[in-house]
């Protein structure tokens, strides 16, 4: 079959890709863990962020990694506003409605982007796109190594926010017991919106990490979000360590199945894992809650 070097490189590349997947999944699982909803607009919001990177680069010459500083706060606010003023009020607290409202948002965002940018595949040029790092056993692309490092930093930051800050404490309280949290004076609607904002902000970071080596089309987010759904289900809905481990695992699975079965069928591997987990172990590998 393949020589060990190729397989090792594939595994390492899978881990690097998996780091970005984990970041996308992190936002999804955070929102699920607190609001107990699946945000179907997650992929469309990722696409929006990727177009944001594109526009900042082409319009203002801002480097994608610098764009993190602009887009992360912007997307935090966007996510906050979406939950506070659209999803929350429109769904009247019913899960079925939240499902439909986030689906509606996804349809609107995706097609608005299609109307503005058309379906062309676009990418940005950065001078370091093809630079690589030699780690002895394999050559790794520099942007992917940066993506891994930043993803870990974001995961740590997210952990710090949840574990060490007051708002983090409030978020954990709402996640555990919404009514009790409201009774002790926590503004649940605000906490929901903050959580949604954090989830969206992590997408903005993911977009900045992706764009140097990836392309963007109005539907590109779907590919990632399916992977993210798989990771979240695999790692256990609402579990942040689960999302990280699941992300890395799926990255490797995708890379290896791409190597052995080719690109298009490689994707199927992800979906089959996804369906199998949903059907046979819906609590995920790490999750405890049903």
């Amino acid at each position: 079959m393949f020589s060990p070097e190729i397989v090792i490189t594939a595994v390492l590349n899978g881990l690097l890709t998996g780091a970005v997947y984990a970041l996308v999944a992190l936002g999804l699982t955070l929102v699920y863990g607190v609001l107990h909803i699946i945000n179907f607009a997650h992929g469309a919001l990722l696409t929006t962020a990727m177009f944001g990177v594109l526009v900042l680069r082409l319009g203002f010459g801002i480097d994608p990694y610098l764009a993190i500083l602009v887009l992360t706060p912007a997307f935090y606010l966007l996510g906050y506003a979406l939950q506070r003023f659209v999803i929350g009020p429109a769904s009247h607290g019913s899960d079925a409605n939240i499902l439909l409202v986030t689906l509606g948002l996804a349809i609107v965002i995706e097609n608005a982007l299609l109307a503005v940018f058309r379906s062309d595949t676009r990418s940005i040029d950065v001078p370091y796109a093809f630079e690589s790092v030699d780690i002895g056993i394999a050559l790794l692309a520099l942007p992917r190594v940066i993506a891994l490092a930043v993803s870990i930093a974001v995961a740590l930051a997210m952990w710090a926010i949840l574990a060490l800050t007051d708002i983090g404490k409030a978020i954990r309280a709402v996640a555990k017991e919404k009514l009790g949290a409201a009774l002790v004076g926590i503004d649940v609607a605000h906490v929901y919106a903050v959580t949604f904002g954090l989830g969206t902000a992590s997408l903005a970071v993911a977009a900045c990490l992706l764009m140097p080596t990836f392309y963007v089309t109005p539907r590109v987010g779907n590919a990632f979000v399916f992977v993210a759904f798989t990771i979240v289900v695999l790692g256990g809905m609402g579990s942040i360590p689960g999302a990280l481990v699941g992300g890395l695992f799926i990255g490797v699975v995708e890379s290896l199945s791409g190597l052995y079965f080719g690109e298009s069928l490689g994707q199927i591997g992800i979906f089959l894992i996804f369906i199998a987990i949903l059907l046979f172990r819906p609590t995920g590998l790490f999750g405890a809650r049903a």
Partner: protein
Amino acid sequence: MTARDVLPIVVVVALLALIPPLVSSNTVLNFLVFTLIIALAAQGWNILGGYGGQYSFGHAVFFGTGAYATAVLQVHAGLNAWLTFGLGIAAGALVGFVIGFLSFRSGLRGSYFALVTLAFAEVFRIVANAAGLTGGAAGILIKLDVRPENFQFQSRGAFVWIGLGLVAAVLLATRAIERARFGAYLTAVRENEDAARALGVDPFRVKLAAITLSAAVTAAAGCLYAQYFLFLDANIAYGAWISVEALVAPIIGGIGTVFGPLVGALALQGLGHLTSHVAGEVPGIDLVVFGVLLIVMVAFAPEGIVGLLARLRRLGRRRPAEAT
């Protein structure tokens, strides 16, 4: 079912059936056929989603299976088109049964069920896009041979009538379900599955029956699509667009009502045409409007157009009474 149940259906269908002889414009007839296909797919979704409360985000899997079965069996097995139409419906029902069996046996509900249906549709799309039998990414073409025995007609009016016949059959069937014990079970499962079980309803069997029926109806829409356009590829047959239309139409029209899917499909398609008329041929702009409408309806009129009309009628009735 009483005459009062059947009469409104007969009137609406008869009015729509009058259009082909009166209007010869191909644009109008095209619009009508397409809308009826969407309505049929949406009627299928409504049985499971509207009455049973199980929101599928991947009804494309049934639509596409019906469409591909129709096309592949004609092209590769040389079967008669009318026969493949029936086989397509059966294939869709079978896929519905299997997906329903797997998902409901695992107890998937709510978002989890939405996710798993979405994933099944994607798997089918990727396979159809790669497999040789379905023509892969190039798609599959049914040979043009315009004869009634081939389910191909010179006039679009014939397709309007066939589409209308199917929609009418499902309207009647839906009304019958509403009136039957099965409908009561289904609504009970939607409202509270545990309570339904406590009363002796078997939710698994009820949901399984609902998804099989739902899949058969949506597959029929796929068969009709294949036969009308004579061309399919994976992104048409298993594309997210049809999953979205099948779900949005009943919600706009009136979820869990007999006329909801038809009304919603007419409203959506009409609006879609209007938007592209106003905004020009901007891709995706009609779907933007659909999405906004979906959110607005969920927020302000969860009972849909049918529900709004009923509310208006009740208001109209009450006013004169209050005046006296």
